[in-house]
């Protein structure tokens, strides 16, 4: 049987195997073929597994997620030679369900970026237009799922690294509630923000994969018990109260085509039975990015300190320990990690801690409270995921702040620890526009239900036009 990987959802693929229509190996081979055909152009993968064990369907894994015996570089030269001796909890969970790792996908170095241009191994390309970025940091997983190189993938999201690439490549991506998915084995960027989540072609696939990877993990003290995941079935939005934060829909820099697609989707939601009402998140949007760029780099400055050349990864010899560490880190880290390590170390240093890190933590509490208050009145909050559609490779690489502003709409809910999901909601200038649905803590089921109904009503074709 021939398989059109461009069209196949994970649910359908799984059914093909369950029905005996295709073997797990044949399916795996079909995806390898697709990778062979399209990845030379897209560069979604940093490593392709020839034959990972398992009886189920394949999955692509962002390269910050540790995989036993399979190289895990986090997109960095400093981990070029690193092969983990243990599986992340999320990988162990996937393996228990028979999922087979088909490869490790490209990422901005240590997940720091919004375009994958910060990968030490070169950028990935957007399947809709290879001259454009697929978003980031999880651009590799996004491009792979969008171009049919994997039925689904795992990403990680710190300030938008699942949602924003899903928006730019036109598929589904969930950043789960903080604490619902184990971070054990996942190369840390900013511990209080990092969450692993599903990258998928349909909302139901996304919900199913979330049910596979989530749950309390004794190896991650910050995980909690997770409500049972309900695979969404309903076509309507009756009773759903949608809040539309005006700052997130009217922020400077939102492209008109993006606003138009989002507004059209809101009208559609009303026609499906939802109530749509404007609301406000004044401080979350104003201070979210600034606050994020203190907390995330501060944590990163400590998380990345272990790459010292002593135990694994790159080592550049020096006359003494200090010189060896400095040379190793100078050679091993790219500009963006270095920039964030410096910002973070500064924000934590004596005399500056209160003004920067301490204040940012207080603002974070304010952001969380602002969201909590809205969820007393609304079931989901909606906005564009990214202010823009995919931008050309190179357009923002020399302007870090412009790059950081890509995440202005995804960061606030990340700071609040809340779940957010992207679904494609239309095209602007021939490129996908992403809609962000934000839920309350542990509100994944509500988001899945809303997103699933909208997905059906929108009828968006996730296969990039040029590949159809």
């Amino acid at each position, binding site marked *: 049987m021939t398989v059109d990987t461009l069209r196949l959802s994970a649910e359908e693929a799984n059914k093909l195997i369950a029905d005996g229509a295709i073997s797990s190996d044949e399916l795996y081979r079909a995806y390898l073929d697709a990778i062979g055909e399209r990845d030379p152009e897209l560069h979604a993968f940093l490593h392709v597994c020839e034959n990972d064990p398992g009886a189920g369907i394949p999955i692509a894994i962002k390269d910050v997620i540790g995989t036993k015996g399979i190289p*895990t570089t986090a997109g960095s030269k400093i*981990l070029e030679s690193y092969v983990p001796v243990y599986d992340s909890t999320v990988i162990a969970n996937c393996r228990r369900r028979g999922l087979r790792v088909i490869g490790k996908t490209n990422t901005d170095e240590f997940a720091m970026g919004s375009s994958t241009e910060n990968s030490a191994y070169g950028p990935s390309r957007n399947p809709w237009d290879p001259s454009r970025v697929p978003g980031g940091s999880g651009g590799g997983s996004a491009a792979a799922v969008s171009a049919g190189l994997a039925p689904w993938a795992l990403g990680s999201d710190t300030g938008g690294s699942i949602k924003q690439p899903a928006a730019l490549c036109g598929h589904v991506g969930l950043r789960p509630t903080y604490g619902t998915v184990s971070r054990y084995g996942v190369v*840390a960027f900013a511990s209080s923000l990092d969450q692993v989540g599903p990258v998928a072609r349909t909302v139901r696939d996304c919900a199913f994969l979330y049910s596979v990877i989530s749950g309390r993990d004794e190896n991650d003290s910050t995980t909690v018990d997770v409500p049972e995941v309900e695979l969404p079935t309903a076509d309507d939005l009756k009773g759903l109260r949608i809040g539309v934060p005006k700052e997130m829909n009217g922020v400077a820099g939102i492209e008109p085509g993006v606003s138009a697609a989002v507004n059209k989707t809101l009208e559609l939601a009303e026609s499906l039975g939802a109530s749509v009402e404007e609301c406000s998140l004044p401080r979350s949007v104003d201070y979210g990015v600034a606050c994020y760029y203190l907390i995330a780099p501060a*944590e990163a400055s400590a998380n990345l300190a272990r790459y010292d050349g002593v135990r694994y990864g790159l080592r550049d010899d020096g006359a003494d320990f200090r010189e060896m560490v400095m040379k190793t880190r100078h050679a091993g880290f790219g500009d963006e990690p270095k920039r964030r390590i410096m910002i973070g170390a500064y924000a934590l240093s004596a005399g500056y801690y209160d003004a920067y890190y301490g204040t940012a933590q207080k603002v974070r509490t304010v952001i969380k409270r602002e969201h909590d208050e809205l969820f007393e009145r609304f079931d989901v909050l909606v906005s564009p995921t990214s202010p823009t559609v995919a931008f050309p490779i190179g357009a923002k690489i020399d302007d870090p702040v412009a790059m950081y502003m890509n995440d202005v709409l995804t960061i606030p809910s990340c700071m609040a620890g809340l779940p957010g999901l992207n679904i494609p909601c239309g095209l602007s200038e021939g490129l996908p526009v992403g809609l962000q649905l934000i839920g309350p803590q542990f509100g994944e089921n509500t988001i899945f239900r809303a997103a699933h109904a909208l997905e059906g009503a929108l009828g968006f074709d996730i296969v990039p036009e040029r590949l159809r």
Partner: protein
Amino acid sequence: MTWEPVIGLEIHVQLKTETKMFCRCRNGFGGEPNSQTCPVCLAFPGALPVPNRRAIEETIKLGLALDCTIAERAVFHRKNYFYPDNPKAYQISQYDEPLCAGGHLDVPTEDGVTRIGITRAHLEEDAAKNVHVATSGRIHGATATLVDFNRCGTPLVEIVTEPDLHDAETAKRFLQLLRQTVVELELSDAELEKGSMRFDVNVSVRPAGSDELRTRTELKNMNSFNFAAKGIEREIARQIRIYEEGGVVEQETLHFDPTHEESPPMRSKEEAQDYRYFPEPDLVPVVPGSDLVDRLRGEIGELPGARIARVAKTLSFYDADVLVTGGLDRLWAAVVAAGADPKEAANVLANQFVATGIDAGAVDAGELAKLVSARAEIPRAAFDEALAKVGEPGFTAAPYLEQKVVADAAELDPIIERIIEANPAQAEQYRGGKQGLLGFFVGQVMKETGGGADPRVVSDRVRTLLS
């Protein structure tokens, strides 16, 4: 001018929990280098810490024993610095929300107690062990460093005192008392030689009567209480000398090496580290409930400090201190209860028994009491032999008590005469006034009798026969 020393201590105690502080690796001394390691304690990418419940409970228990307030909410912080023995390049420690704070330890003295404030007691993880490969084996002059991560992640309690100490002797006694407290709570072996108890000392001096705090120096890596006392005394003298010569004491860390006369400087103020502490985001705050704290409080028995004061009512303060800090006072009380003279029992335990290395818990106090009571009547050799075996299962004193000491002059005189004859030169010198030679003759007789003679009778007879 008279000077008053100001001394503060920082003590680290390794907890003897089954597993390490943040992973499931066995917590134990030794083993092949790097055999007790895992992704967590080697700081592999993605590894996360999970706190050891037992270690938290034991720290709270120690805090209670030191009359500390137990935090309702304690937080782990990251302390950031690069060093080969610190694999994450941060140590998980505690900063401004420690588990225990604001306590004290009363050190008994001849006329009461000296109260030493405990600023805080917090929980952290120990570092790995750097093995500096060089001829001297010490940091200075090392050419390469190997790292053994077996120790890395051992639960470590840090206890910080107020600068309430003003002399080396009290500092030493504080440390001994704290050690015994920790040992009795069964939290740690607290063995200085093995490094399971370590301490740093901050020393400054000021004009007597002043309450200023002058620049302090830190003495590190002292591996015995006596070295600590010696190091403190030497440092006090050094600082006084500097001030009296019109100089300024520099803030520095002195790496104490008992084999050298001076303590060589390790780190000066200019290189002072900024550890960039911040709350450890991989862990949630520790919230010890009052039930837990009450249970732990209930597990604490009478502490050594209180027992010294109690035992000192019967014995001298010195004997009481030695018995309690040596972990022997309970055996002493049992031996006395079984009929031995308190002072005699204390002498035997503090001077002889302690040298045998026998576990006090293994001793049948009734049998030891018989031995102590018969000490004067049985030969010295028999007593020593019995004491060496007093910890063996089923030990009885009876066979040793049957060996009576030779105290009969008629029996001893022929032996003494023979020895005098064999040593005419010494005999002449003694008679010429060299009284110190008495011991020589007594010793010869004791040797001849295999320790079976009563030394008091022997010395009496020697004196008579040589006169």
